[in-house]
């Protein structure tokens, strides 16, 4: 009479552990595989196309010691931060201003949506033409790339504020700016923070790519300079550092997000 129970039975703890070990082992194996593939690629394809992983590691180490790497990282982060702040500022401020001008908003909305279709990176040569070859064109690029997601998130957030709360506040005698501050801001702060999770890494990426095109400092500049000199060690080193930088920033944001939103029952971002 003893038979197996249905799937609703508690999974045996040992089975779950085994699976976790298998997954971790698989991941380690995959990392080893990728590194091996890299090494083989380096041996086969020669020093020009594929830099040797060990040499890349040494190069990163050397550049760190000499301070070159930190200099470029600093430059990239500096420009990203400024651009990020500018983009955020307008991305938040503009929807609040537009909220008071519904007719204007309705009139310009299609053009704003149309401007989303323009690839911002394509504007960089124009920015260089207009603003020179210092920080300015990169700041414009980063500012725009940060502006759009933040603006859209805040704008949609404002639009979706519960009207009943707004009416309640009005009846209670709140002024428009008080309503903005109390009801609207609190309603959309979650959307805003979610958009930051996208915008901040994007700011850093955008800066790096902007540095491909203009400037004489930063990780992007480092990579592009190496490429033009057929210095594959430098190219690989730069890409490794740039990728690591963005991934670290991502990870930090995810952690912050978890802490800050720990109390929220819903609003969980899916890891997608």
């Amino acid at each position, binding site marked *: 009479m003893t038979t197996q129970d249905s799937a609703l039975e508690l999974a045996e703890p040992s089975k779950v552990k085994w699976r976790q070990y298998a997954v971790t082992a698989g991941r380690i194996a995959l990392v080893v595989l990728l590194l091996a593939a890299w090494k083989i690629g380096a041996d086969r394809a020669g020093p020009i196309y594929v830099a040797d992983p060990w040499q890349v590691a040494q190069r990163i180490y050397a550049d760190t010691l000499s301070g070159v790497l930190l200099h470029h990282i600093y430059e990239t982060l500096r420009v990203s931060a400024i651009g990020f702040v500018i983009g955020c500022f307008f991305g938040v401020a503009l929807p609040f201003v537009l909220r008071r001008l519904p007719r204007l908003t309705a009139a310009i909305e299609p053009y704003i949506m149309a401007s989303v*279709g323009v690839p911002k990176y394509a504007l960089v040569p124009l920015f260089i033409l207009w603003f020179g070859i210092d920080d300015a064109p990169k700041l414009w690029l980063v500012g725009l790339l940060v502006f759009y997601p933040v603006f859209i998130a805040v704008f949609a957030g404002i639009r979706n504020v519960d009207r009943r709360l707004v009416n309640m506040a009005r009846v209670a005698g709140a002024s428009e700016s008080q309503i903005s501050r109390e009801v609207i801001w609190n309603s959309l702060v979650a959307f805003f923070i979610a958009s930051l999770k996208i915008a901040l*890494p994007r700011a850093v990426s955008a800066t790096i790519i902007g540095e491909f095109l203009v400037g004489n400092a930063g990780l992007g500049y480092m990579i592009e300079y190496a490429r033009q000199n057929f210095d594959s060690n430098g190219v690989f080193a730069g890409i490794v550092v740039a990728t690591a930088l963005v991934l670290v920033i991502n990870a930090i944001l995810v952690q912050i997000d978890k802490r800050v939103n720990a109390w929220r029952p819903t609003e969980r971002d899916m890891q997608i």
Partner: protein
Amino acid sequence: MASLGHSQASPVAAQSGFVSVLRNRGDQFLVLVLLLGIWQALSLWLGTYWIGSPLGVVVRLYDGVVKGAILHHASFTFSEAVLGFVIGAIPAVLLPFLLRRLPIATAILDPFMVGGYGAPKLALAPLFILWFGIGIESKIALVAITVFFIVYFSALAGVRSLDAKLVQMAQVAGANERDVARHIVFPGAVPYVFTGFRIAMPYSIGGAVVAEIISSNRGLGYLVQLSAMNFDTIGVFTALIAVTIIVFICNGAVDIAERRLLRWRPAGDIKNQASN
């Protein structure tokens, strides 16, 4: 992306429907005229060195299309975007399907995919140019790898969205594994995959253009760069408008394909997935 967000219906706003739509259209037209006017005025005031005039752009655009120069470059950018898109999207869609019965494989891959998604793919542009030269191959590779990670996650969500009740129904009706994959898993995943396509589309064109700006001798990005270096702002604007038109065409194509293939979807069902 039809609009920035939908306001909740308010009794006051619903009143004069037709009139307010008409007024809205009028406003938008007015804004258009105003923008063009400002553009033209700035062009006259600052000179075409800084801002090419709208008329000049129209003429150059017409010229470029008729004589083929713009179309020539546009075809390169377009084919880079499309080929890269296809090369990136196909494995991205296949992988979740093939690994459907091996959740361990998906779990192992997960951190790598998340890392690949988060990493700046465009930063690989110089590497691909180093490898494949300044021709279209490097751009295709860049677009492909960008599109891959985006579409992978959407396809994964689609495959995971499987409704167990539908699978049971099909099994009782006599379906085997292949039937289930073909008739239940695949159609159910299509809306998610299309969301992924819609998100990846601008990245594919943008990626092609960026790579062209960095190093190329053909394409609209190259045209932008070349015109800028020659202080030819009319050329810059013309190329930019051409790129934007391509973006609209591609978006429209994806929309049309989606509407055709997804006629069965109840309205407002998974539309909101687009806010990934």
